[in-house]
């Protein structure tokens, strides 16, 4: 028994009578203009990501490196090793590096944003030599991170370093010279130079954002008797919120991927920064290029990338309105 009925002649006639919808003409020109950029994105970003993902599923080490992408495929074994195998050297070091990286990112971001915002507020007024002050304050940001790591490596030395000289000999804040590059202080030895280099650019961004806040709002607030703190809390902070939210996100991403300062301060990649100095990126680099475990190194980088994607998605979701200025 057939359940499909043939369309009758009337139906066919009706269909013919219905005017055919006009196909919307697509303007190809914008796509042509976008095509080179899209192609470059695929070549520069997408292909390396796909290749990296495949590398993370290969037994790619010193003995198989010459085979490169033809190295034995081992599925998710690298991920299992670095995430769950307690005997895996990458896993063993990762927990400490993860703790340090989390604390480091939070502390550096909070301090850099706080100092940057504070100095921007101080500079957001007219005074003689303002341009010179702003330029001089930008100097730390101009110094490359490799140089920052090397310079602070010298500055932190216990006996010859300038930090202890200032703290102990000049300011008399301590009665003995502490070690900064050995023991628990290594954590502060990497945090402080990172903040030192990061805050000036944030200051400049916040200063630019402050220029866009209408002066009328402050005048109206003053007329209403609002004090400095109230003006900051109810005018400045809401006005800067989109910029702050974006900059905090960028800072956290930058700091989680931080490498240069730690690597240069502790033996140019030769050594191990210590229990409190190791971060995820130096760990990843050590595993990949000192231990030659490229497959596991790629797996760690994809775990990091996944965590960062989740973080960025949550952050964007939480602060979407602030970032897009939607109400």
């Amino acid at each position, binding site marked *: 028994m057939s359940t499909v009925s043939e369309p009758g002649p009337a139906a066919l006639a009706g269909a013919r009578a219905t005017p055919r919808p006009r196909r919307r003409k697509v303007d190809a020109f914008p796509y042509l203009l976008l095509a080179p950029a899209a192609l470059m994105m695929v070549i520069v970003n997408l292909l390396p990501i796909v290749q990296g993902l495949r590398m993370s599923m290969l037994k790619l*080490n*010193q*003995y198989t*490196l*010459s085979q*490169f992408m033809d190295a034995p495929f081992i599925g998710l074994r690298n991920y299992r090793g670095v995430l769950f195998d307690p*005997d895996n*050297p990458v896993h*063993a070091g990762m927990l400490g590096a993860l703790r340090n990286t989390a604390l480091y990112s939070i502390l550096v971001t909070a301090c850099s944003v706080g100092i940057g915002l504070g100095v921007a507020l101080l500079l957001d007024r007219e005074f003689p030599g303002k341009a010179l002050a702003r330029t001089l304050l930008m100097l730390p940001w101009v110094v490359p991170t490799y140089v920052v790591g090397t310079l602070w490596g010298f500055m932190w*030395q*216990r*006996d*010859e370093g300038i930090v202890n000289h200032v703290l102990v000999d000049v300011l008399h804040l301590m009665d003995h010279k502490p*070690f900064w*590059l*050995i*023991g*628990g202080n290594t954590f502060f030895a990497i945090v402080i130079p990172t903040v030192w280099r990061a805050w000036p650019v944030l200051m400049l961004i916040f200063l630019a954002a402050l220029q866009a806040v209408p002066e009328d709002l402050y005048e109206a607030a003053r007329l209403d008797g609002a004090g400095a703190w109230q003006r900051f809390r109810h005018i400045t902070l809401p006005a800067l919120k989109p910029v702050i939210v974006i900059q905090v996100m960028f800072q956290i991403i930058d700091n989680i991927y931080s490498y240069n300062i730690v690597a240069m301060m*502790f*033996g*140019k*990649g*030769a*050594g*191990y920064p*210590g*229990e409190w100095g190791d971060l995820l990126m130096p760990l990843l680099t*050590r595993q990949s*290029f*000192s*231990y*030659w*475990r490229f497959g596991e190194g790629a797996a760690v980088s994809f775990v990091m990338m996944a965590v960062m994607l989740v973080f960025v998605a949550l952050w964007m979701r939480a602060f979407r309105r602030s970032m897009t200025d939607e109400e």
Partner: protein
Amino acid sequence: MPALAIPPLASPAVPHRRRAAGWLAALALCLVAGQAAAVELSMWVMPVTNNAQRDIPALIAPWVARHPGVTVRVTVLDWESGWNKITAAAASRRGPDLLELGSTWMPAIAAMGGLEPLSAAQLAEVGNGAPYYPQLWKTTQVFGRPGIYGLPWYADVRAAFYRTDVFRQAGVDPARAFADWDSFRAALRRINGITVAGKRVAALAYAGKNDWNVVHNLAPWIWNAGGDMLTADAKRSALDTPQALQAIAFYSSLAVEGLVPSNALEKDSDILEGAWVGGDYGVIFSGPWLMRRIFEAPAGSVARANFDVAPYPAGPHGRASFFGGSNLAIFKGSRHKAEAWDLVRYLGGKEPQVRLSLLSSMMPARVDAANDPAWTARHPAYARLTAIAADGRAYPPIPAWGPLEAVYTKHLGELAELSSGVGDKYSEPAMRALIHDTVVEADKVLQEAD
């Protein structure tokens, strides 16, 4: 036939075509001949002299003069990034024609298939390695496999550099001080903290972490205690043997006792050597490159006027010194292997090795060059380095040495933190636990090599 009717029309063109073909053939011959005559060798070296970009071309200039049509493009890498660049070249088979490789790097690159093994004929041309120090000749091979992959180029032999004025003022006889471990410790105790030339001198300097030399610094102490870095079959770490533990305990105790100041442990070798030349330390274990630094110091500097070289203090089982250096090899992907070999063989000769040693202060890798008066007569210390090299010892040439050294460096850095007195207090059980962790991780690296 119609085809036969064409010649009258085509006949004027035939000589043109023939002429054109002749010109093309001549041009092609010229191009081929030109290519044959214009061989460009690419050579990668490390910064063995202060200005290797100038000195290495000068070193090979006599060879280039004898090979018209061959030019050599020298690229100077650095020790920090050189490893990554060379491994990438070996993996991709795209690299130089010949290159310098650290003696511990060579087995890894050879095992990757990145180097051209020397033929029997080539080996015969260099006396099957007889002119070279046998310890260094072994570094041109891969442990447990046949094949020779290059020639030793220059040597790094470690020794004790000490301040003669400090020893004199403390009333310590250097010959007695370096006799054995006990006399060495006693000598360090006597010189530690004395003031010489207006400067308080710490007894001994060695890098604790943040440095590539951490393992090389410790190795001779382990060998001299009768231990080794690996088991005889090179399949396991041997750092947990009683002999190795004895050496590690002695070596650490020098820092725990304060004979190596804690602030030395946070510095790298480069800074420590500068500080030794500047008069901060009485003794430092270093290599021949320190001679260059000493002689570059101002004429009146204390170290330049008052230094000498001694072998490692004898341990319970000997007086070995770390012996390494650099080798020259032909890259597998080279398209000019014959020319590359000719240059390698030239640089492996006595006269170029002596010249390089004078330019760099690194010891020649050939026995005859290391005993040449041009090297030994420069300063008595050079002759002493040559004598110390007789007891030199190199690591077994295993491909996994690179990752293994990274594991050792990491954990020995932790040992230095423990010895420094900052944080956890040093104890022998804590040291043994740390070495146990080192061995576990090192064995994993070695297992992967199987």
